[in-house]
């Protein structure tokens, strides 16, 4: 075999098919996987790899906390569809990425995380910075590896990328002992992945597709529920084709927003705990529910006893274990959403005769839209999101943290295009919103990236402002500042008789000064009448910004399905 040269950013990497160290192999393999950015943080056990990063010049972004690195890699993965790559050291470095792994696992984000490990000779002796990372991360990864011999490394990396990015995507961790990374071995990356225990079903069963098409023909009240699976399989076009062909009303999960155009006349908005009345009532009364790539999370279904009581359920999912897990499913379709939707369009079944149903749905939408009380004296957070929508022309990549602002962003920013919405859905990870915006900006360097954050969540990973400062990365931080743990405060108001235990901030930092400490331009807005102008300025500003928006403190997210209730029992709908 003749040696091969790989280039990264115009620089030549080591040639292939020759002896090299484990850490060289790692960087070489990352280059072969077209990794254009690594997010990470160095430390003792991973130093050989960092030496290789130094020598090759492969792009590495130094976070200021490993959690920042792993969430940045997630944001990158969500927007680019490629595996996010994160490199950290052993022990505390590795345990600091556990939250990010759990987050990526539950939201199905492709990630390859490489953790340093103590030398194989001392594994199991409680060595300095040793942690059982493979054990700790087993439940929060799609798969993980510990590399024992340097010769295994190319195969392991190849398998890791394969597992992370195919089937239902997810995070894969590679634990790399220090001695393995300095040992020498023969590097050959041209091998086929051979994993007999991992064979995702991509092409759905034709008979099941036909069954589904027939069910649509028979249905009088069909609804399509769109989940993030449609985004992962890049099936937005096929979905639109199918919906236009069959004229079925569509609703979306929190994570599925953008998979189907939010302003389309058949889109009923988001369903679930803070979804629209229309979407939830449609689910409640549907006689056919077609779930494409959603996993029937409890925040979506509400009380399962009352969920879609009239519906025959069809479920398209690449992960067979999701089908029937929470909801009894009459028509299971295992396969890739893109393939399934393409086949459905091809079958071209007779659409449902459901004009009455569509009228009913339109009527709900007209009568009970999302709403809030406008106010001249205080800035309404919902209005703030609307302004962001207006000022970005709906074209921005929006990331959020977790809490009320997240729900308002989901409700009031209309996502018409896929991969513009980055939020922590399944795990609800505070601290996610800001670093994920950094990753998103790397995935889409030319797009406007707006991080809509709560004042509390921002403080969990605010140190990553260093990255913005260092690279003049034009992320726009919009703080929806209600001086409280808003969502916690709302639940305490509604379900704990207003006992606001540890949810109100008596004092807060000066966020503008905080930004300025990182040389980031900051604004504070208290008067609602100044908001739009400041927002315009901030979004137009050439560089990173932070806008501290002082919003109405006691605002609640409505409408709402209280815990234990069903979709038909929404509270706080438009009076």
């Amino acid at each position: 075999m003749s040696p091969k040269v790989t280039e990264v950013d115009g620089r030549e990497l080591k040639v292939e098919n020759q002896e090299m160290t484990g850490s060289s192999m790692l960087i070489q393999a990352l280059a072969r996987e077209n990794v254009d950015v690594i997010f990470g943080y160095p430390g003792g056990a991973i130093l050989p790899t960092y030496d290789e990063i130094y020598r090759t010049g492969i792009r590495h972004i130094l976070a200021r906390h490993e959690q920042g690195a792993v969430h940045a890699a997630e944001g990158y993965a969500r927007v680019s569809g490629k595996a996010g790559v994160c490199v950290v050291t052993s022990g505390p470095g590795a345990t600091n990425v556990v939250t990010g792994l759990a987050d990526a696992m539950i939201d199905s984000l492709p990630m390859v995380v490489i953790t340093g490990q103590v030398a194989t000779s001392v594994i199991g002796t409680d060595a300095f910075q040793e942690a059982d990372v493979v054990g700790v991360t087993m439940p929060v990864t799609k798969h993980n590896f510990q590399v024992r011999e340097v010769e295994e490394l190319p195969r392991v990396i190849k398998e890791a990328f394969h597992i992370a990015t195919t089937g239902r995507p997810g995070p894969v961790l590679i634990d790399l002992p220090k001695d393995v990374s300095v040992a020498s071995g023969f590097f050959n990356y041209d091998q086929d992945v051979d994993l007999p225990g991992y064979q995702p079903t991509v092409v759905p069963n034709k008979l099941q597709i036909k069954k589904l098409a027939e069910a649509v023909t028979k249905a009088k009240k069909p609804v399509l529920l769109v989940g993030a699976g449609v985004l992962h399989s890049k099936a937005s076009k096929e979905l639109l084709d199918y919906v236009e062909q069959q004229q079925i009303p569509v609703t979306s999960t929190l994570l599925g927003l953008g998979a189907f155009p939010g302003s389309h006349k058949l889109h009923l908005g988001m369903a679930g705990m803070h979804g629209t009345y229309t979407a939830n009532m449609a689910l409640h009364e549907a006689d056919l529910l077609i779930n494409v790539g959603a996993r029937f999370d409890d925040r979506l279904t509400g009380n399962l006893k009352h969920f879609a009581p009239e519906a025959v359920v069809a479920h398209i999912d690449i992960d067979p274990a999701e089908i029937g897990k929470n909801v009894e499913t009459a028509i299971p379709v295992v396969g890739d959403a893109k393939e399934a939707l393409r086949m459905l369009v091809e079958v071209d079944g007779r659409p449902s005769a459901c004009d009455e149903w569509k009228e009913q749905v339109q009527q709900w939408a007209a009568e009970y839209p999302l709403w809030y009380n406008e106010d001249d004296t205080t800035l309404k957070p919902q209005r703030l999101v609307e302004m962001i929508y207006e000022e970005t022309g709906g074209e921005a990549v929006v990331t959020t943290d977790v809490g009320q602002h997240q729900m308002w962003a989901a409700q009031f920013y209309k996502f018409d295009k896929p991969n513009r919405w980055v939020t922590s859905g399944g795990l609800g990870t505070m601290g996610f919103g800001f670093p994920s915006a950094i990753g998103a900006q790397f995935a889409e360097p030319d797009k406007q990236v707006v991080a809509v954050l709560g004042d509390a969540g921002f403080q969990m990973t605010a140190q990553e402002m260093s990255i913005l400062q260092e690279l003049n990365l034009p992320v726009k931080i919009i703080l929806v500042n209600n001086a409280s743990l808003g969502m916690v405060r709302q639940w305490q108001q509604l379900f704990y008789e207003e006992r606001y235990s540890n949810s109100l901030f008596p004092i807060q930092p000066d966020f503008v000064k905080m930004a300025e400490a990182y040389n980031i331009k900051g604004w504070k807005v208290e008067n609602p009448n100044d908001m739009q102008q400041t927002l315009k300025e901030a979004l137009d500003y050439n560089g990173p910004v932070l806008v501290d928006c002082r919003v109405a403190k006691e605002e609640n997210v409505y409408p709402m399905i209280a815990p234990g209730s069903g979709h038909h029992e929404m509270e706080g709908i438009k009076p």
Partner: protein
Amino acid sequence: MKRTIIATVNNTSGVMNRITGLFARRHFNIESITVGMTENPSVSRMTFVVNVDNQRGLDQVIKQLNKQVDVLKVRDITDDAIVARELALIKVVAAPQHRGEISSLAEPFRASIVDVGRESVTLQITGDQQKVEAFIDLLKPYGIKELARTGITAFKRGTNKSVFESPKYSIIN
């Protein structure tokens, strides 16, 4: 309902941990797990006896097992014609004058006395769960000092084809 499930898995370090961790975090109720080598040294075979509430619970166990990269094949063999065996070692209190009696109990069960102490004898029995349990019951009146059971290991009877040669589990039948 009680089901017997067999799986072939990669014989890699940590695979047992993956499986037991999966059962624990999904709240699957397992009665026993056995694991051992197969004719192929890189593959191990596991036999699980699980307790599930209904078909959906059973489906979940099988699907979640299948999702593991190190799990090669999974099959519920409860309703197949199978050979299922477990081994038990039972140490019973036995004064010298009772030994003959105990020995005669063992005979129809094809159990054997594998160790004799001053105050006890140790019996070994293999068989399906029912047989093992019946035998243990019979010995109870003498006083059981120690009991060790391996749990069931099983495979399909007869044909020389592996049970795994039928298509991989799929929810589309």
